[in-house]
């Protein structure tokens, strides 16, 4: 059961601004079980709360989805480098994601829609393995009705009541026009999908420095000390988790890194 936790500080003055960038993450501590890295999915303008979407996959996240209103957790962060949303102002954005509700990209969609005039076209391509896996179906439909916004969905296994495409999400790129001079691509999901998408996007003329991706690695500290998340000389927790393709191209897709 996937759920979104809405959290508010109980030990900070409400007036104190809490700044973060979509794509950054918190280490969320569930007493006395432990910590887990979770992307922040709410908007930085909402000073009085922030949201984390949690999928129960381990001891901590299994506990987090069972919390009740008023329960307390510990927060460290925000950590890492988020999406380049300042540099993206005025550009078209192509968001390509795979898997169950890719939280780091959901935060970008909300950020852009709240500042709609600051950005160009918004193209959202979302893939799931099975049609039944798509969460927030109504939300995707609502996003598709926003100005200058296109939503294309694909399921590896379509099933009935699936009006969208069947097949890999990367194939949706064939149905999208994009201007390589003004588009930034933001990718999030399984690395095989990211690699396939990069190959297509480069073939469509997108320069390497216009392709950004979110990497997931084992994280224990969030501050570049514990060593688990390293990809070659890069700490995903501090140098990423969002990387520009040309920063990570040498080791992306190399098994074992």
């Amino acid at each position: 059961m996937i759920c979104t936790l809405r959290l508010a500080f109980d030990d900070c003055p409400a007036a104190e601004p809490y700044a973060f960038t979509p794509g950054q993450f918190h280490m969320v501590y569930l007493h006395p079980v432990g910590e887990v890295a979770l992307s922040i999915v709410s908007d930085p303008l909402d000073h009085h709360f922030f949201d984390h979407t949690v999928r129960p996959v381990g001891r901590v996240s299994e506990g987090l989805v069972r919390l009740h209103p008023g329960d307390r957790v510990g927060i460290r962060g925000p950590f890492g480098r988020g999406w380049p949303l300042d540099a993206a102002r005025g550009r078209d954005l192509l968001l390509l994601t795979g898997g169950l509700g890719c939280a780091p990209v959901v935060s970008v969609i909300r950020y852009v829609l709240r500042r709609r005039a600051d950005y160009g076209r918004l193209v959202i391509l979302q893939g799931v393995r099975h049609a039944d896996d798509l969460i927030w179906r109504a939300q995707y439909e609502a996003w598709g009705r926003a100005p200058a916004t296109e939503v294309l969905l694909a399921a590896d296994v379509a099933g009935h009541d699936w009006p969208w495409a069947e097949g890999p999400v990367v194939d949706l790129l064939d149905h999208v026009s994009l201007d390589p001079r003004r588009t930034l691509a933001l990718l999030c999901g399984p690395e095989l999908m990211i690699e396939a998408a990069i190959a297509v996007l480069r073939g469509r003329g997108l320069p390497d420095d216009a392709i950004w991706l979110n990497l997931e690695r084992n994280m224990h500290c969030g501050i570049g000390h514990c060593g688990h998340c390293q990809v070659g000389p890069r700490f995903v927790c501090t140098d990423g988790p969002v990387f520009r393709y040309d920063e990570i191209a040498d080791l992306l897709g190399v098994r074992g890194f």
Partner: protein
Amino acid sequence: MLRGAGYRVLGPRVQDAVVGFGEVGRIEELTPGLRESQAPGRYRLDAAADGRWFGWTVGPQALKPLLFPPREVLWRSVRDAAGGLRFEPPQEAAPAVAVFGVRACDLAALALLDAHFLGGPAPDQGYAARRERLLTVGVDCARSAPTCFCVSTGDGPMLVSGYDIGLAELDDGLLVWPGTADGAAIVDRLPLDEALPDQLAEAAEAGNRAAASQQRRLPSRHLARALFASLDHPRWRQVGARCLACGNCTAVCPTCFCHAARSEPSLAAAAEQVREWDSCFSAEHSLLHGHPLRPDAAARYRQWLTHKLGGWHAQYGRSGCVGCGRCLTWCPVGIDLVAEAGAIVGDDSDD
């Protein structure tokens, strides 16, 4: 005098049949004539007839456990009756520690650990507190073990930098000199005679002999490009077949910093967030969605070597290897980092 100045004094003591840094109450507790023989997969303590205080080279641990303990409480989480959480720093205060017999390679490793734990935007507070109160009494190595290769990494065998007080052992006595103001404050109070030119020459000759006796050398101090260009080399598979993935090399490496963090619950309202040394040779180290990214020893050895000799350059401005040779000695199957690096990069180095 150090104890009078408030230091807990550590020096070479035989512990578990190896030379380690242990508590030294009086100078008589030190054993002269300690000497060891080392080879890949082998360490034996021998007695030397010369009665030198520092005739041994390196034991299994450098300064790492003193500054970055194998197990450490990071913070405590306390839940009150209303369900509120309070986070408390660990209680123990760092004592002032003086360590005798620190080697040039140990000091080079210390500088690297400093860069890792203190150099970034979030300095490690426990490390910083212990580091602040550490006084190092370094000593020139007058001999090298067969496993030593610090000449090729540029880190020894004679002291280079990073020590508070320097020592060089002569056939008859010690040369003593300050390396920092803290060291000078101690040295200035010692009843010392001015060193004679012959004594300085004797120390220099001993260091030169130790340097010249080293048989192992890394192909270069700059192997990042060569290693990352060799990720498909068949040697990874071969060394992976020998490697037990036991993690001894990372435990004895004076610069390996990986650690795992976890919460230790108790029946009381408090839980402790604890960190323990981890190793990139464990399956858990690279877990992602329940599966290790590096499923076999070949991938893990490649991760370790490409990071140690490669990735460190971009992260900390130099290689993460200081040439101490501990990973050779303490590898149960005697894998030789120098030989593996040489086989993989050949003569293809950056300089």
